[in-house]
């Protein structure tokens, strides 16, 4: 039996889940990941599933295709797609549905494409495999989709290999792959999360127009409410595997009912108080830094200058590849700069890490993006936080233990966590340990490299407020490296925008954010999704009028 496409009637539910329960196995015990969720998806409707990690949104997305991850099982409930129960359906029948009537768009296009085949052959594969259309017809349809998705040179785009196109283009190609058979429903699992904001903007726009043009329904899974506001007709907020709230997108944004939804909406509103830093006293000063990987490699940093007034937060913002993390590596001496001058509290620093004194190292600390790999999993928390105390201040035994407990309290963790191992802590707690470790050295400056980007929004919010509180208490300065402008807005006093290894614009954060002067800063700032409906179209109109955009930008950069 092959279910055929039924297109009659525009009302009616395409997908109906009732009391869906999915369990996951941890060692020998099964625990519920999804705890009885009801979901209705109408034809031509885009439903946004929003929640933090562990909310069960991806699990629901997969269940919508009758699928579960390894180590999981559907424990109860029903999943009815267009009148057919997906649970317990035999594999052959399900295969005839997947790819043809239900398609999936994953987060990482780079991982979804086989690098050894051309994009075109992979885009049409499902259509040809399922005998939906002839290879020639499929290719024709693919070209039409490339055009619809605004991919460059649609006639020949399919002949390229995955490594020959950019990340944003590959993500759109994956969308073409999902759409080639003209499915009734597409499951989008965080399709723009891994992209830079300017790229995300282009992908979102192309995606929205293509979905509307093709009259498809979809489940859009994301953690970013602002993104979902641009696309979804309806939003379902999930937490701990349960539905928190569900409603029309507009209603959710304007009048959220649940506290949790309100919390998500309020994320990263400005946290900092107005401060007037002493402009004369610069704690960290970088002057004309030039750096490359390998002596003859291309310059990753070109004449970068930056200074951080004492007791303030300087944000360095840019997209991937802009050189912002390299700047941190150059400042810390991990990647000795080829030229330039680094000054810490008025004292010039040697370029090489090994040539710096222990005292200089103490005064410049760092917090990392991923707490999972920045804290040694084999050490107890007491050792993690205590080691800098021993190294810098010679503290041991009882005194060290007391100081560790003090530091734990300072980062709002119970003192008995000193006896735990990192694996017993959550991501946000581990990041707090990372902060305590940096704090233990009593530094002048802490470099924070994307410290919140691996965390859920509400948790990230907590980390940011903690950092600000510590700044108020200790007068510490931060260099905050991030790609996330909302974070900058929330905590930075000054901001430097980096693009292709240079600082293109810098100044007082509020001014730069309000009224950027350079083209790139304008493009970057206007690409950050805002939590209002119709923002996507507004920005597109504005850009068309002034002819700015990613394409225009890369042309002018000219390499």
């Amino acid at each position, binding site marked *: 039996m092959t279910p055929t496409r039924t297109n009659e009637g525009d009302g009616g539910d395409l997908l109906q889940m009732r009391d869906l329960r999915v369990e996951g196995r941890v060692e020998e015990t099964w625990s519920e990941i999804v705890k009885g969720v009801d979901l209705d998806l109408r034809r031509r409707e885009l439903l946004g599933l929003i929640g933090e990690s562990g909310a069960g949104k991806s699990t629901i997305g997969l269940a919508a295709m009758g699928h579960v991850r390894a180590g999981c099982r559907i424990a109860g409930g029903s999943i009815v797609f267009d009148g057919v129960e997906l649970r317990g359906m035999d594999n052959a029948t399900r295969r005839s549905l997947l790819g043809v009537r239900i398609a999936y768009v994953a987060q990482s296009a780079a991982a979804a494409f086989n690098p050894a085949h051309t994009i075109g052959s992979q885009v049409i594969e499902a259509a040809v495999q399922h005998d939906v259309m002839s290879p020639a017809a499929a290719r024709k349809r693919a070209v039409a989709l490339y055009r619809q998705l605004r991919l460059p040179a649609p006639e020949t785009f399919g002949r390229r290999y995955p490594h020959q196109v950019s990340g944003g283009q590959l993500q759109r190609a994956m969308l073409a792959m999902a759409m080639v058979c003209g499915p009734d429903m597409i499951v989008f699992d965080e399709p723009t999360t891994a992209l830079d904001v300017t790229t995300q903007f282009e992908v979102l726009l192309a995606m929205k127009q293509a979905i509307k043009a093709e009259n498809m329904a979809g489940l859009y899974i994301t953690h970013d409410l602002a993104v979902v506001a641009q696309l979804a007709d309806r939003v379902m907020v999930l937490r701990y595997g349960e539905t928190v709230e569900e409603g029309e997108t507009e209603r959710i944004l304007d009048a959220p009912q649940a506290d949790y939804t309100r919390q998500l909406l309020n994320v990263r509103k400005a946290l900092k108080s107005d401060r007037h830093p002493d402009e004369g006293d610069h704690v960290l000063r970088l002057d004309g830094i030039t750096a490359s990987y390998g002596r003859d490699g291309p310059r990753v940093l070109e004449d970068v200058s930056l200074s951080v007034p004492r007791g303030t937060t300087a944000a360095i913002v840019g997209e991937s590849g802009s050189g912002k993390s390299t700047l941190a590596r150059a400042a810390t001496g*991990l990647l000795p700069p080829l030229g330039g001058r680094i000054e810490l509290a008025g004292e010039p620093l040697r370029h090489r*890490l090994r040539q710096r004194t222990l005292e200089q190292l*103490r005064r410049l*600390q760092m917090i*990392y993006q991923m707490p999972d790999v*920045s*804290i040694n999993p084999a*050490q107890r928390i007491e050792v993690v936080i205590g080691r800098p105390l021993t*190294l810098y201040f010679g503290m041991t035994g009882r005194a060290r233990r007391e100081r560790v407990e003090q530091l734990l309290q300072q980062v709002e963790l119970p003192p008995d966590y000193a006896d735990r191992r990192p694996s017993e802590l959550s991501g946000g707690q581990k990041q707090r340990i990372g902060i305590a470790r940096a704090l233990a050295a009593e530094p002048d400056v802490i470099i924070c490299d994307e410290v919140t980007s691996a965390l859920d929004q509400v948790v990230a919010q907590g980390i940011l407020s903690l950092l600000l509180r510590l700044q108020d208490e200790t007068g510490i300065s931060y260099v905050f490296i991030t790609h996330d402008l909302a974070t900058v807005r929330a905590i930075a006093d000054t901001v430097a925008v980096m693009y292709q290894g240079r600082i293109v614009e810098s100044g007082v954060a509020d001014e730069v954010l309000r009224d950027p002067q350079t083209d790139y800063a304008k493009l970057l700032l206007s690409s950050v999704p805002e939590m209002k409906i119709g923002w996507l179209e507004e920005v597109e109109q504005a850009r068309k009028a002034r002819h700015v955009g990613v394409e225009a930008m890369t042309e002018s950069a000219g390499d």
Partner: protein
Amino acid sequence: MQRFIRTLAGAPLTAKLGLAIIALYLFTAVFAPLLAPYGERAIVGAQYLGPGPDHWLGTDNLGRDMLSRVIFGARNTVFIALIATMLAFLIGVVMGFTAAVSRGLVDQILSRVVDGIMSIPILIFGLLLLTVFGTSIPVLITVIAVLESTRVYRLARAVGMNIVVMDYVEAAYLRGEGTWWIMRHEILPNALSPLIAEFGLRFCFVFLFISALSFLGLGIQPPTADWGSMVRANASLISFGDPTPLIPAAAIAVLTVAVNFVVDWFLYNVSGLQE
């Protein structure tokens, strides 16, 4: 401790069997003088006696009690293999981590030297070195440890390479830690699982290597009881249908299999294969 017991209780039958056999071997090795009915070197009867009430496993080519020699053999062979393996790990792990931490020229030099040593078949190289330096037990241990450490080096370097790129190692550098501290406190604890599994396997190879050397006459020297040389000394009996030389051979085989059972179980646990 409780977790350890629970893990042990949940082990598959093969692993339990393996652990029991290893425990038995160690017990035998430690208490050999108490367990053996006769002395290690004492000639107690006629040559080539068959199994009987006085000599459960008969006597060997010089009229020594086979059972006593098998028991003392456990002590000699197992302990020499254990010491050689530990020495091999000490050398291999330190060198491997040094290469992983230093990279660049140091890594190149160490790795190419190791490649050079590994390109010569280990048994031939071992025989050559033992011929040159003589066949005392310290020399035997050193030669085996050096040769086997090349294999350990490769593993330690590969595992170390994966760990040095972690942010916590970078954080240690930024903190101002020295190389030795980083190797000892940041890398080693996280490399322990693969190294312990490798230790089990390596021990088997060393053990077999010693037995092979002894069989060839360049290993543990008579009259010290050793399973490899015992096989050789009584090898001619096999053509008369007497199974005596198979007894020390079986002792070697059983221990090898037992260690492999345990290592398999351990690897299965640490590698996440159970998912």
